[in-house]
Every structure is written in C-alpha cells, then in structure tokens.
C-alpha cells in the first residue's frame, strides 16, 4: 500500500511480507502510531503537568497519598499491567515468527490482563467514592481522578482494540509473518503501561 522509496531508480526488491519504509525508516502504521503517541505525551503533559504545578508550585497543603489510596492493591494492579505488557511483546515475537498458537495465547493473556486492570481500578474507584474521596475533594481529588481516570480510559480503549485484534488473530489475519498490526497496537499498549509506571509513582507513592 505504501510506496515510499526515496529514489526513483533505487526501489529495492522488497520481500512479500516486509513493509516498506520511508524517510524515518519505519513502515506507515508504526510511524502513524508513533506520531499519535507524541500527541498522547502532550495530552498527559497537560494533565500531569497541572498536577505537578498545583501540588509543588503552590503552597497548599497536600495529604499523604499512601494514607488515602489503597497502595497495596494498586501495586498488584501495576504488576498486572506490566505482565500484560510482557505478554504483548511475546505476542509480537510470536507474530514475527509466524507462531499462530503462541500469538493467540499471548494476545488473550494481554486482553485478560488489561481487563483485570480496568476491573480492579473500577473497584478502587468505587471504594474511594464510598469513603467520600471524590473529584470535588480538593485538588488531590481533582488531580487524582482526572489523571487515573484518563489513563483508565486509555486502557479501556486499548482492551477494546486488543479484543478486536485478538478476534482477527483467531481469523488468521496475521498469518504468514504479518506482524505490523500486532506491533502497532503493541506500541500503544506499552505506552499506556509506561504512563501508568509514571502515574503510580507520582500519584500513589510520592
């Protein structure tokens, strides 16, 4: 689909399943995903930056998060998300090596991991709201819910897309070493994991 050779006379003989690369040396879907991820970086910059500024730029009192939030269960949740990232790269490796059973297995693991994360976060929200910790509970509540909420929204979108990709994998759409779709959605998945690593530290632990 992409014809992006830089020189008119230097179009190399491209093997059947190898995506072609443009100026930055990556195929189109992956490039598009990276461009999208840079914009996601800026989106989370707005949210995390506001948190940093409101917490450390002004002289207001800030409660100890480890006292309000359930750090233990969230640590487990963090671990689950990291695990789903690992299963995602295993799925990618399986796709590259055309290991179809492996691909299906690891994709399913990833979807289950992601869904578990969302489920646990949902329970956490329910408990917190029940205890009276709300978005309107001062700046801590405001920033907490907006940051983790939008992260959870991203995970949910990821789980839905992953479920779709898994369905396609079961239909054999990635057979023959066609790994591009898996790698591209994987980038998004790892990015969401990466954001959580930062959020877990600065929201729950500091």
């Amino acid at each position, binding site marked *: 689909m992409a014809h992006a050779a830089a020189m008119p006379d230097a179009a190399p003989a491209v093997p059947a399943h190898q995506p072609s690369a443009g100026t930055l040396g990556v195929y189109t879907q992956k490039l598009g995903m990276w461009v999208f991820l840079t914009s996601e970086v800026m989106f989370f910059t707005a949210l995390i930056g506001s948190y940093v500024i409101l917490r450390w730029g002004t002289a207001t009192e800030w409660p100890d998060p480890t006292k309000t939030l359930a750090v233990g269960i969230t640590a487990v949740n963090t671990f689950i998300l990291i695990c789903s990232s690992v299963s995602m790269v295993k799925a990618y490796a399986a796709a590259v090596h055309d290991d179809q059973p492996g691909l299906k297995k690891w994709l399913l693991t990833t979807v289950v991991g992601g869904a578990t994360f969302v489920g646990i976060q949902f329970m956490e929200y329910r408990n917190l709201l029940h205890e009276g910790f709300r978005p309107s509970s001062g*700046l801590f509540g405001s920033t907490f819910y*907006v940051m983790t909420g939008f992260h959870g929204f991203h995970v949910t979108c990821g789980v839905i897309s992953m479920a779709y990709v898994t369905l396609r994998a079961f239909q054999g759409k990635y057979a023959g070493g066609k790994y591009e779709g898996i790698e591209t959605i994987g980038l998004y998945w790892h990015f969401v994991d990466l954001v959580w690593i930062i959020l877990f530290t600065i929201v729950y632990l500091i």
Partner: protein
Amino acid sequence: MTATTAQASHGHAHHEELPFIRKYVFSSDHKIIAIQFMFLSLLFLLLGGLLAMAVRWQLGFPGQPLPFGRLLGEGVAPSGVIAPKFYLGLVTMHATYMIFFAIMPLLVGTFANYLIPLKIGAPDMAFPRLNMWSFWLMIPAGTFALLSLYAEGGSPAAGWTGYAPLSNTPVYSGVSTGQIYWCLGIAVFALSSLLGSVNYITTVINLRAPGMHWFRLPLSVWALFITAILAVLAVPILAGAIIMLLFDQVLGTHFYLPSGGGQPLLWQHLFWFFGHPEVYILILPAMGIVSDIIANGSRKPIFGYHSMVYALCTIAFLGWVVWGHHMFQSGMNPTLGTTFMASTILIAVPTAIKVFNWMGTMWRGNLQLHVPMLNAIGFVAMFVIGGLSGIFMASAPVDMYIHDTYFIVAHIHYVLFGGSLFAIFAGIYFWYPKMFGRQMDETLGKWHFWLTFVTYNATFFPMHILGVAGHMRRIYDPNTYEFLRPLQSLNTFISVSAFLLLGSQLPFMWNFVRSLARPKMTDINPWRDNGLEWTLPSPPPHGNYATPPIVLHGPYEYSRPDTAEDFLPQDQPLPAHQETR
C-alpha cells in the same frame, strides 16, 4: 504533459464504482473529505460573519433594535435590542466559529487534505478511514458548538479564550449548559484535528512519490506538514486543559478555582501554550498556499526556496516559546515576561524574510493578475500590517496600554482575515477547477476581491485608532465611559463598513454556487502550474495516480530560459538532464 487516464489497468487505482453513500457521504477519498470540510467550514464562516454583524450593530448603533432582531427572541434580545449577555455570547461564538470551525478546517481540513496527497504523488492519505473519522467527528463538534449558541441559560459568555474562573463558574457568568456544550464541542474538535494531523504527518513522511525529495516539496506542502506537527503537539494540550475546565463545571473539581486551591493562571498558561502554536496553525498554511500562487502568478521560481522552508521551521519553533506574551498584564512574573518578550520579538525576523522573499519573487516577474494572484498579493499587503502591529504588542511596556483594546482586535483580524482568509480565497479560486472540473467566473472574482479589499480595510484599519484611544475589547456599550464617547462616530463608520464587507461576499457565494453548474472545462492545467495535481484529470479519480509519478525536479521551475513554455511540471524532465536542487 500527459493526462493520466481515470481507468487504470493495473497498479493502485483499481477502485470499483462505490455506491453513492460511500463515494460522497462516508467517503474515505481525501479529495471528497476535503470538499466536505470546505462546505462545512464555509457555512460556519458565514454564520460567524453573521454573528459579527450583530456585534457590529450593537457597537455602531448602541441600544437600537437590530433589524429582524425580534426573531432572536425576547430572552436574548428584548424588543430586538441585543441584551448585554447575548452580546457576550455573540462575541464568544463569533471567535469560536471562526477560529475552530471556519479558518482552521478551511486551511487544514480542506487544503491539507486536498493538496498533500495530490502534490506529493500519493494515492490517498496514509490512513483513509481515520481521515473520514476526522471529518465526521466535526459533525458532533459543530453540533455542540451550534447548540451552545442557543443553550438554556444563554450562550457561553467568557470569550473564546474562556478565562477561568468566569468560564467555569455559572454564578459569575450566568451561563451553565452553554459553556459545557462549548467545552464538549472543542474537545471533540480537538480529537478530529488530531486524527487529521497524524494522517498528514505520516503521509508526508512515508507516501511521497519516487523522486519527491524533501527539498522538492512545494512550499504549501511544507507549510501544511509543519502545521500538522504544531497541531499534533499543541491540540492535546488544549484538550487536556478544556477537559479540566469541563470537570470544574460538571464534577466539582477545582483546577482553576481559587476557592479550592486552584490557579486561574494555570488555565491561561495551558490555553496559550496551545494558543500561540494555534496562531501559527492558522497562518502557516496560508503562507504556503500564497507562496505557491505567487510563484505561479509571477511565472518565476520562488525567491529563496530554502530560506522560505527554514523560515517556516523557525516560526514554528519560536511559536512554542512565546505563549506568555498573551499574559504580560496577567500578573505573571515580570522576569518571565522579559524572556517571552525577547522570544516573541525574534519572530519578526523569519516573518520579514518571508515577506521580502515574496516581493523578491514578484520582482522582474511576468505577473498574471488573475483572481488567485490578486488575493495572494492582497494577503502579502494585509499580512504585513498584521505582522507589524504585532511588534507593538510584543514590546511588553507598549502592550501594557494596548493590551485588551481594539488594537489587538485589529491585529488579529489583519492576520486572520487579511492573512488567512485572503489566502483561503486565493486557494479556493486556484484549486476550484481541480476540485470540480469547472472554472470560477473571473469578473465576479475580481469584483469580489476589490470590494472585499476596500471594505475590509475600512472595517479593520480604524480599529487601530480605537485601540490607541484606549477602547477596550468585548464591551457591550462603550458609551458608559466618558473617554470613549467621542469614538462613537468611528464605531458607526466601522459597523457600516462591516455590513458592506459582508455584502461584498455575495459575489463570491454566487460565483461559488453558480460555477458548479457551468460546463466542464477541458483544460486540466488552466493556471499552467508545475504541481503534480495538474497532471491529473479534473476532478482526479479515486486513488489519484494510476502509477506513482516520478518527480524529477523542484516545484518552481517557471520561465526557465532553456524551455519554450514558461512552466515545467514536476514530472517533466529538465532540459539536457541538468540536476537542480
């Protein structure tokens, strides 16, 4: 030059006939999407213009009933007289429609979509279905924006900049649902704009035709590419900021509310961190379009192609570190203000390079004063005024007096109307034949240009004087202030000019609609342009190029001494195999 036939026997363009709804409604063809964007944003342009007329009526004839004003309803205009709250709604929604739903989709949605794949020799965008989503998301975004105008409790009244805490506290503004719709509309708009921009960047990087090196890209594509980079990085900041503004209203958060420990200035910083790159999103594509048209109209290579590209990049980069100049008088740290003043004033340098290079292009040319060229020259002439008045604001101490006065209103309109809109007109006249296969009427076009040019200046130039006299912006009735009363006659003059300015758009509207029914033209390259799009039939088929074109040289090979014609399309070989650029 050879016209590529619509039916391709092999290669990329084996697109079977699609049903009407897939071809013209839920189309993933970048050209159809561009035209959809154009129709939608021209409607918003007209609506924004009508709101401006109501604003000008109140300022020109304060307290007089607006003609047909009773139609607006007693709630917003008792006995036809615009109420103060509705006035603020008009001001806010005029700017919101113009910036987010007219100028930006016209420049980016329309021209980026239409020109990028055609000009780089690509079959379509990198992600055609995302592109379709980018347009269809504009429908809910636009619907929210329209709903907010007539929402219960009044339309948003905090200005398009939505400064907190006025914007997020219904008690202070008297507006509730209107402001919420406004936030939702802009948030959805942000998503739409993001999908489009990701597409443009990926397309330019990966889908250029063989031989289309970076320094063989037309300046319009360069400008649209850099614009897309700005949008990808700036628009998410707006999305984040506006979501927090929304949550302050609906979830009871306190991001911008001092009562809960929040910071009103945080909103301003985030907004302008987006807002200044946004200003360049609104002008860089115009510069690119004008560069292409001026080179074509002058029948000369663009003067200093490389420095034009570097100037674009410099403006885009500096655009990130100047946002504080919107906040000189906000109570920001004066030392920070100094930094922002220095970076801001430096932008004058790359801007000056561009203006002088356009003049250099016209110098010793063979100027074809057709309608697109007239509008392009109009752009240069008017953009200079907007750029120069910017220096007054960039100087922080001078800004202290003219900040938030009509001086800044004049400035923004010289840049956005005199700049962007003239370029948009130029672009529409120029690419209309490619889009629809029909030429717009030249005589009506000239009438449109000259009437617009005169009434436009009569409307906006006196605003500088209002500003110097201290006339604040966004005030419902200047006569409350003793020192503004002598300006009433000037305000009336401006208003009458503004009505004539709207009237001057009638030839354009008629021309645009009427030309759709004119006979099809046979000439596929009426402007004798070098761009790849002019090697295709008009309108080009779905999938554009049957086989990828091979690009052999830069886009501005006009009037070469060694060619008989005064142009040389990019896929035609240079005489004697000379390698240029």
